């Protein structure tokens, strides 16, 4: 054969590994199909995996011997039995395990997993509402744990936390966000036993100043997040002034009882602070605050959203904190062009600027920011009604690194503005929700130039139609998140074009009255990776669309079918065929009978994690079904 001595064969394995290292995940998928050599490189180099079908896990584990990170958060059928079956394949060297939303996994399975993965260091069990003390005790078997994420483990109490704390004393990072049962006692024990803690998240907990006093004794703590701790006040923050010598980041956003003096006391005690997030708790930026913040030579992030900031104080602030890269002044009363211009001139390294709801900011300020801060990556201008194409023009000219632009509800944005924005060729996320003055013309510009775009939000942009959507679908091939809810002009012709977006995983089609089964069928057929689909109030989609969906959308995890005219048979077909579906909204289905709902839910009850149902069904569905759903960790919201 003439082609047998391939040019690729001259590349050594280590060179291939280096090349492979530069590739992004979609390319890696293609890479391993090239040759056996390439496949081998892929097998050996891969360290992390996220799987949708847990039944393939044993094979995958043997194919990828160097896996260290395993993400099971999207597996629909992960329960104790599956884990016990896995255990028969022997121990694995997984270090990081993501079990987020694995609601069917209980103490037995968790303990097996913890024993199975020797050297487990990171575990994420967030949003497992059934995760309680027993599960915590099971998890504490993994003594080497360093990072634990327990967000929204609603059943977890101090006792469970104590088990984890005592079992894994090397913890360096723990997140307890929304663990509403945790009290001062648990936090106190945590701080006494885990002296190596570097990162702690106690957001939304009902903890008091006593907890802050315990936290202040942590010698190595670097990151403290305490968003919305309603019982903590300035006295509590004063403990932090003299404690936590290594503190670098603190978030006291929305702590009702915290005022400026509390924030000042933190600032006073920590001259090396890098990130200070004090949104919606500071009412006014005072002179004492400005005086103290001058001392923070390394401050990179400052969020003071919702505070009263005068132009002069913003000028003083920016002149004293020149290294700032991230500033949040959304909803700040008193912010005008003068302040923002001064800020832009002083903080030229700015990467993120949040100006949402600063109604007095005009194009002049945006131009100044664009010209001075050439490294700007994220700009949030939500509800800045005075922004027009002039401001966007300078953004297009100067902000070549801009990745995220939020123009939601800026009705000054028009097609010309979009033309300018499209020059920001590195744009990844663009939000244009409620911008009604944009038409197909603007869409053409975006579609033709922003080829890297990952996320596009066109919520209620009534001005564009099928041609615009076609342009987007043609141009932005990497798009994985598209929101075109309530764009009333769209019909099947446009929606059918979406099928070109192969990487699309999140699609919202809410309220598109003109699309029918044909449009949905085309989408289902083309977008194989579709993971989230919102079809609420798409009343004209008939069963043919749902049949196609049931047949093609095998990776669908979440679907909203409220107000759809789906029939009994189509619903049953959908629920039984969509083997990955985990989160379903089924409210106001006029053509579905009680029996239909019962059958459909029975078909998928072993994989559902979240369900929204019409309230009267609570008494009409069989109790066995409801018990089964509950036992499998499914949460039902009755509406």
């Amino acid at each position, binding site marked *: 054969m003439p082609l047998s001595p391939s040019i690729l064969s001259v590349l050594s394995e280590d060179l291939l590994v280096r090349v492979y290292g530069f590739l992004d995940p979609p390319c890696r998928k293609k890479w391993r199909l090239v040759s056996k050599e390439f496949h081998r490189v892929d097998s050996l180099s891969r360290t992390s995996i996220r799987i949708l079908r847990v039944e393939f896990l044993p094979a995958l584990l043997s194919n990828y011997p160097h896996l260290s990170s395993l993400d099971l958060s999207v597996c629909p059928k992960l329960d104790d039995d599956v884990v016990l079956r896995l255990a028969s394949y022997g121990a694995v060297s997984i270090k990081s395990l993501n079990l987020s939303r694995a609601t069917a996994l209980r103490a037995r399975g968790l303990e097996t997993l913890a024993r199975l993965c020797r050297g487990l260091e990171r575990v994420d069990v967030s949003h497992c509402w059934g995760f309680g003390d027993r599960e915590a005790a099971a998890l504490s078997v993994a003594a080497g744990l360093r990072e634990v994420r327990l967000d929204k483990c609603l059943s977890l109490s*101090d006792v469970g936390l104590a088990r984890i704390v005592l079992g894994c004393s090397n913890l360096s990072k723990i997140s307890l966000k929304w663990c509403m049962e945790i009290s001062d006692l*648990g936090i*106190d024990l945590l701080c*006494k036993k885990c002296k190596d803690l570097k990162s702690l998240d106690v957001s939304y907990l009902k903890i008091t100043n006593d907890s802050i006093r315990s936290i202040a004794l942590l010698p190595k703590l670097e990151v403290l997040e305490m968003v919305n701790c309603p019982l903590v006040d300035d006295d509590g923050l004063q403990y932090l002034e003299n404690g936590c010598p290594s503190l670098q980041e603190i978030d006291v956003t929305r702590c009702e009882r915290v005022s400026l003096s509390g924030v000042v006391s933190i600032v006073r005690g920590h001259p090396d602070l890098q990130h200070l997030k004090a949104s919606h708790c500071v009412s006014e930026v005072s002179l004492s605050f400005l005086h103290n913040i001058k001392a923070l030579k390394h401050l990179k992030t400052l969020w003071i959203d919702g505070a009263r900031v005068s132009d002069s104080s913003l000028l003083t602030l920016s002149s004293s904190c020149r290294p700032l890269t991230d500033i949040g002044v959304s909803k700040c009363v008193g912010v005008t062009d003068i302040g923002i211009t001064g800020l832009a001139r002083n903080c030229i390294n700015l990467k993120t600027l949040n100006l949402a709801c600063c109604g007095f900011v005009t194009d002049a300020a945006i131009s100044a920011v664009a010209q001075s801060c050439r490294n700007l990556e994220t700009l949030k201008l939500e509800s800045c009604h005075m922004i027009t194409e002039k401001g966007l023009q300078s953004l297009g000219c100067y902000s070549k690194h801009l990745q995220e632009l939020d123009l939601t509800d800026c009705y000054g944005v028009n097609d010309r503005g979009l033309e300018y924005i499209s020059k920001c060729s590195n744009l990844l996320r663009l939000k244009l929700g409620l911008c009604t003055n944009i038409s197909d013309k603007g869409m053409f510009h975006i579609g033709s130039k922003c080829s890297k775009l990952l996320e596009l939000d066109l919520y209620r942009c009534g001005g564009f139609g099928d041609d615009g959507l076609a342009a987007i679908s043609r141009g932005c091939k990497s798009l994985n998140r598209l929101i075109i809810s309530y764009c009333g002009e769209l019909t099947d012709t446009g929606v059918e074009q979406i099928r070109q977006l192969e990487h699309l995983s999140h699609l919202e089609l809410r309220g598109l009255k003109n699309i029918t089964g044909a449009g949905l069928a085309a989408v289902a057929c083309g977008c194989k990776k579709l993971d989230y689909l919102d079809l609420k109030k798409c009343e004209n989609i008939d069963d043919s669309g749902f049949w196609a969906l049931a047949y093609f959308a095998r990776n669908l995890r979440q679907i909203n079918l409220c107000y759809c005219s789906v029939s009994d048979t189509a619903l049953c077909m959908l629920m039984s065929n969509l083997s990955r579906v985990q989160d379903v909204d089924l409210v106001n289905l006029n053509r579905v009978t009680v029996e239909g709902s019962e059958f459909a839910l029975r078909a998928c009850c072993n994989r559902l994690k979240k369900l929204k149902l019409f309230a009267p069904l609570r008494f009409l569905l069989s109790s066995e079904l409801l018990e089964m759903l509950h036992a499998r960790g499914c949460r039902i919201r009755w509406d």
Partner: protein
Amino acid sequence: MEDEEEGEPNLHVFKASSSGKDNNNNNNGGQASVQGVKAQAWDPRTMLCNLSFMEQKIHELQGLVHLILGRNGQLQDEQQQLITADLTSIIIQLISTAGSLLPSVNMLSTTAPGSALFPFPREANNLASQTLNNGGASQELEDDAEEGENLPPGSYEIKQLEKEEILAPHTNFCTICGKGFKRDANLRMHMRGHGDQYKTPAALAKPPTKETLPGSDAPMLIKRYSCPFPGCKRNKDHKRFQPLKTILCVKNHYKRTHCDKSFTCSRCHTKKFSVIADLKTHEKHCGQNKWLCSCGTTFSRKDKLFGHIALFQGHTPAIPLEDTKPSAAASSQRGSSGCGNSNNNAAMVSFSLGSAANANQETSQPCVMDGKTSFEESFSPLSFDICNFGGFPRSIFDDSFQMLISSACGCSPINGGVGSVSDTSL
């Protein structure tokens, strides 16, 4: 007299129910009856007369029973009635005879308060205790200045109840039928059933206490109690004697310190108590907020558990099993059914005459085991009050006695029944 010194339980009953009585409606009771409350002095001639009367009666009965025996043990109705009536009168006679003895003994014992000469100074027996107190008071007059812990020795009067006295469930006894009550008021309510003379406001009124007694104008000496257990710190012979304040203190102290813990919690089946009230208090909170450490220590409060865990290396909070609650419920059901049984037993026992006599003979000595079981069974408010002082014998005697009187005197048995039920439920 011999019996009394030995502390026979059955005799206590008689003795206790002796003070103020004249109730003999029987044909032959008149001559031997003690004349009301006034006739407290002991008259040897009357005693002799009574004893000979009883002897005669017993001989008559013997003859009758022999006669029945001669007829193959067939018992006619009228004969049965006759025997019952005779027995009743004998028993009543015996009580009143023994009762006439009581006050005189009291008189003797006043010289040494709390001495073993008179081991049963029942507080219910107001007259007796009053004389006792008055005697003590007149001897050692002191100001009752100090009410605290450090009363100087001699500034108070020490009383020592004996073990049997402390363990007796009842301190008030009916002088007619001998039924025991925990409270004086209950006894007065009960007495109404024995005749109109007990229904007068004066009879129903609360008897005057020491302080309000018109006769004693001398200031009262503080009364303190000593535990009869030798070597106990609460015993008056102890070097650093610490007296107990009230009779209730004595009772609780004695039971808690010197008795077996015979009541087991029906929820956890581990905690044991010797005082029912303690058990009840525990059961109220048993199972709830049980904070358990891996070392087995339990805490009533979570912060205590966490403090413990923070202090000791290797200790972890234990997670309670999920099925604790159902089992507790089941056990409580079991408990209640058990009570039901004991209730039935009590009813059976109290209405069977023959077995009562046998039981009396068998268990005439107070048996600890019997005492225990009966205590446990008596826990239900529904069960009859069989948990009496010496175990079964007394209770059986009580009930059978009631039966006798009711049949002999036409007195309604409901009275006694109601009395006993209300008594236990208190």
